[in-house]
């Protein structure tokens, strides 16, 4: 892949996927959709986090992906995923999709994280999967207004909710922090009447419309 392919959208060479990856993706596509009107404890969420070479979507590249599933409102260490894109980006991204299944995904700052992921998927897998996603970047200030104190970065939210992780600036390490933030989000959402994934999605959209510069 050359630098040119990144600059000119659609200009990258046709994607060559192994039959094995194609088969896996086909299975993934046929997964039944997840109901978004169930209670949080009945919903499987997947916290997804990425690690890129930098923060510039146009230049920087996805290095690794991490995901932590949240079932019954609990983080279970057995339900965790982490993989570097190299040496086999197709396998890594397919693996991630398989891990996500049809669950709604939870990210922090979708504007970058989801974007960089979707870009990579388009480039590597030649697909733009539709993923229901929740962005804590919008949800946390909506739910923890009294704690936000103008927090917007992950570090600030970790401090506000006194959350720690084993390794910062690492896809899984930060993912673990985001997963803990999401546990708090679920609990708080339930108290404030946002008890389903759908309700959180709507809350996020309302918040986004309100805050985003027109």
């Amino acid at each position, binding site marked *: 892949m050359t630098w040119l392919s990144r600059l000119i959208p659609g200009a990258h060479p046709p994607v060559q996927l192994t039959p094995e990856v194609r088969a896996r993706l086909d299975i993934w596509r046929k997964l039944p959709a997840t109901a978004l009107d169930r209670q949080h404890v009945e919903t499987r969420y997947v916290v997804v986090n990425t690690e890129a070479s930098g923060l510039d979507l146009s230049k920087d590249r996805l290095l690794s992906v*991490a995901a*932590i599933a949240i079932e019954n*409102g*609990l*983080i*279970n*260490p*057995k339900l*965790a*995923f*982490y993989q570097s894109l190299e040496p086999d980006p197709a396998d890594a991204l397919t693996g991630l999709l398989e891990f996500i299944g049809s669950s709604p995904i939870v990210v922090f700052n979708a504007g970058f994280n989801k974007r960089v992921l979707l870009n990579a998927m388009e480039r590597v897998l030649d697909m733009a999967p539709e993923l229901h996603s929740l962005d804590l970047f919008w949800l946390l200030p909506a739910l923890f207004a009294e704690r936000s104190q103008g927090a917007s970065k992950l570090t600030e939210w970790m401090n506000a*909710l*006194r*959350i*720690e*992780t*084993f*390794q910062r600036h690492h896809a*899984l*390490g930060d993912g*673990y922090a985001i997963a*803990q933030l999401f*546990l*708090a989000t*679920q*609990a*708080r959402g339930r*108290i404030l009447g946002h008890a389903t994934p759908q309700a959180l999605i709507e809350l996020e959209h309302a918040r986004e419309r309100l805050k985003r510069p027109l």
Partner: protein
Amino acid sequence: MTTATESLVGASTEFLKRFSPFDQMEPEALDYLSERVLLGFFSKGATILSAEMGQPRYFYIIQRGKVQASQSGDIALTEYASMTLGPGECFPIGAISAGRPSTNTYVALEDSFCFQLPADDFMALMRISPVFHVFCTQYIASLLSQSRQQLQTTFSQRAAEQQTMTTPLGQLIKRDPIFVTPETSTRSALEKMNELRIGCMVIADADSRPVGILTQSDLLSRIVLPAFDLNRPISDVMTPAPQVLPMTATAYDAALEMATHARRHLLVVDSDDKLRGVVSERDLFSLQRIGLRQIRASIEGADDIESLQHASRDIRQLALNLIAQGIGSEQLTRFISALNDALTRRIITLELERHELFGVQFCWLAFGSEGRHEQTLSTDQDNGIIFSAPEGEHEAIKKKLLAFAKDANDALAACGFPLCKGNIMASNPELCLTLGEWKRRFGAWIREPDPQALLNASIFFDFRVLFGNEKIGDQLRRWLLETARGNSTFLRMMAQNALAVAPPLGRFRDFVVEDDGMIDLKKSGARLFVDVARILSLRSGVEASSTVGRLRQSGQRANMAEEELDAITDGFHFIQLLRLRSQHLDTEHDAPGDNKVDPDTLNELDRRILKEAFRQARKLQLRLKLDYQL
């Protein structure tokens, strides 16, 4: 394990390692734990665990935040009414080990994260990690030592309640005295009574010295029925020269006055004879003492079986009330024992009037629990006679005594002491013996301690004289102590027998229960203390016949610490109290449920105290075991 899982497990391990007991835990056990804990979140104010949730599904280790544990239900447990837990602390240990609902309610005091270990994994961890096992059992044990303190507080509180009968009346007066002058019209005096809702009106002179009283119960006979003119002064209708007591008189004095003069109100005056207040029957809250006196008086005044039967029912009723009021078992058994003694003595006295036994030297013995002053309400009679007879009159006197004893046994049965199924009764010719015969009998058991002899010793060696010539009983006791003391084989056999039953303490569960899920508080509770106490008293020559007396006196001779003895006797008392509580007082003697308790129905405090009590029994047994190298 994927690398992702390894990282998350590693994070949990790093956290857990910062806290005891996880820092001491075997590496593979710690791995086992870290791999299985789930991380959950609880918003401030959320209930994490409560009794209503049933058997706990998880064992919680607080990762961040604060959790408040508070005693749920209406069990007053001030000591650990609530307790705040922080990171590294875990719950519920007792409930999850025992597989029963938590008695505490756990609420997040602030937003909190908790590691949650599924209950099955918790049990597995206890099995694979000795360190964790010790931690959990020690934790439960520490609750028990807290319960000891709690036990003592409870007992001293009760003792304090008992002392209220010595409270000076001055302290019982709740409000300023209300009175009218003798010239006041009866109408306005009655209006005032009505308005203030008081049961009696005091009439006092200008110097507030009481001159009369009018109570509600006087109204019908003195005012309503005779159509008394309400415009006449109250002095015309009052009871003059009312009963007064000084401020320094005690509640007990007041109760006595009320009982003897059948009054409901007493006037309290100061040293200048001025009215200071009125004490009513209701003010004397510890009315049980009055009940006790009344029953005692009625026993001593009874001259037929019918009135004694009545008194016997009163004793049961009194015991019932005392238990309901939460009185300690020591006082309770003492009351029951004192009243039963009085009743028995009165029955014997009455029977003696009908039997010609003038000049016969004898004494009436009580055996077993009655002999130890530890009668509960469902004990049948165990009694016997020691007599002495001049040469040649032995048979004739014994015959007379047996006839008398037969009537006395029947009368006792009529008064609620069932006949002994094992025929341990004075009317049994085998148990109406001379001092020499008793010595031969006891001596044979001591020399040849076969199982039956040991069983007999456990009943008959706990004797005391209930009626008659105490000196004969004392002679037998001194002889017994000397003889038993010198026979170490016998004592050793007794000790072996006493150790045959272990306290029903479980390793995982709190208690080891019988097939019906119950604990037999007599067989595997009280008897453990009683048996050891008997041996200690025989060995050290202690004459006391009560278990507590025996333990205290022989313990002091063996230089046991005072606190240790307190702990043991408290434990014994508590088991006795539970026995009394579980007896079906209002039904028959020897009801099947008597002496049995289902530990699951006890509240948490009682469970802990009961465990502590059993632990004391175990300590006592251990002492015996060491002494006799058993």
